[in-house]
């Protein structure tokens, strides 16, 4: 018959020495005897429910001269069961025996020094790395604020910050806990089993939530990637769109869309798409480039080919919309004061005009419009069309 095994996640931290002793012992009374510890799990084997005393010691394994130590422990009735880093777990073989692995708290403190040093070193290293990562994630947040809004790019740095906070919390707890253990030993008290449930539950809750958030993020990312693999330049539908179209602006009715010459599906000059993100749940984007037969540019440089890039963003809240508008201006501003605040019916409207180009960014409540138009039509004409779209 095959032995029944049970694997449990090591929610208790390495430095929770007394808690682990109590946990292993508790598992044994429920008929599960510890046989192995891996990086993240402890393996138990089904056995008779029994009282087993577990004690942990601290030393490096494998180490040729530690054979002697393990032999002495074995002769005194303590059998080596498992290792977790520097932590060595022993169980008392003879259940009637009452002797302890360590009888002198000062000697036990001496043994724990190795673990304390190790945890402190790791703590300091992770602190330094964390600070670097923190800078990196703030840099990531700053690098493309518009994409934070439109493409959820704030999530990755946010996840990094969350992980860093968890690591810092964990390492600090570890260092504080080791100091407490040392203090206890130096005051002349030996380590002993203590209630482990509170710590186990706290760590399980913290770790579980983190794993849940992380996997949701990965799922979300995967879903987004799949969604993105759809058509990049969908055809413009034959219906009324929520954004300003070229037909709204153009005085002529006789025009044709300029056909796309490449082999790829869709046209980069004429497409319409709707997208969504967490902060901007509704995003509309229209590109149109047309040719008006029989009409020339004012300087007679060729046939008249007006084009428009038209966007509408429904932002989560008005406050966010204000921030988003500022970021949009910032990103599209090449020279200082390109965009001029212009008085219209909008809550705010920023206009950037040069020759045949009109670029405007406007906000009504939580909705932000942007129109970039190349053509002969005046800015006022375009603004009034956007106002109509916005429902003024």
């Amino acid at each position: 018959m095959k032995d029944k095994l049970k694997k449990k996640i090591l929610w208790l931290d390495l430095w929770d020495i007394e808690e682990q002793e109590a946990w292993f012992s508790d598992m044994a009374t429920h008929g599960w005897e510890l046989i192995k510890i891996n990086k993240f799990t402890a393996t138990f084997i089904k056995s008779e429910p029994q009282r087993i005393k577990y004690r942990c010691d601290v030393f490096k394994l494998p180490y040729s001269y530690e054979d002697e130590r393990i032999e002495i422990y074995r002769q005194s009735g303590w059998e080596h069961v498992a290792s977790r880093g520097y932590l060595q777990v022993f169980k008392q073989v003879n259940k009637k025996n009452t002797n302890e692995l360590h009888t002198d708290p000062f000697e036990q403190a001496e043994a724990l020094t190795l673990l304390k040093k190790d945890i402190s070193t790791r703590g300091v290293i992770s602190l330094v790395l964390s600070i670097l990562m923190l800078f990196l994630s703030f840099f990531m947040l700053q690098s493309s604020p518009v994409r934070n809004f439109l493409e959820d790019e704030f999530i990755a740095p946010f996840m990094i910050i969350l992980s860093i906070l968890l690591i810092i919390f964990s390492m600090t707890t570890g260092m504080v806990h080791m100091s407490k253990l040392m203090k206890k030993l130096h005051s002349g008290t030996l380590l002993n089993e203590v209630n482990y449930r509170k710590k186990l539950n706290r760590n399980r809750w913290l770790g579980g939530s983190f794993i849940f958030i992380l996997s949701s993020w990965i799922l979300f990312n995967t879903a987004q990637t799949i969604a993105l693999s759809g058509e990049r330049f969908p055809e413009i539908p034959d219906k009324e769109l929520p954004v300003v179209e070229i037909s709204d602006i153009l005085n002529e009715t006789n025009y044709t869309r300029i056909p796309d010459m490449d082999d790829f599906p869709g046209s980069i000059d004429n497409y319409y798409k709707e997208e969504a993100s967490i902060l901007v749940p509704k995003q509309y984007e229209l590109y149109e480039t047309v040719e008006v037969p029989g009409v020339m540019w004012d300087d007679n440089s060729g046939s008249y080919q007006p084009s428009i890039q038209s966007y509408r963003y429904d932002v989560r809240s008005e406050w966010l919309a204000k921030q988003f508008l500022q970021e949009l201006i910032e990103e599209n501003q090449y020279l200082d004061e390109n965009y001029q605040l212009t008085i219209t019916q909008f809550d705010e409207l920023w206009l950037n005009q040069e020759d045949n180009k009109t670029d405007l960014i406007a906000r009504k409540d939580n909705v932000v419009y942007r129109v970039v138009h190349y053509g002969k039509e005046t800015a006022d004409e375009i603004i009034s069309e956007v106002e109509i779209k916005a429902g003024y």
Partner: protein
Amino acid sequence: MLDSQPTPMTEAMYYVLLALNQPLHGYAVMDVVKQVSNDRVLMGPGTLYGIIKRLQKDRLIVLEELDGRRKVYQLSELGREALLKEYHRLQQMVEDGKLMFGEGKSSER
């Protein structure tokens, strides 16, 4: 470090040195300590091993020989001196205690 061994010695250290007056392997030290102290000092193997390693590092004991796979330790000359020093210190402490408990009472205990 002014002195090779910390003063005062812990009780466990004192007894390990005492036991290693004769060459012994690790586990036997525990038994001898138990005997010498009339079952009063029960030393755990973790404590014993830590002390042996430190005493060896401080050269208070030396690795005498390898008896098969087991190592045999013995008190060194330095260890003997340290033990004697500690013995005198303890003796002095008992002497001083007589001020309070007197000759008769202390021998009863």
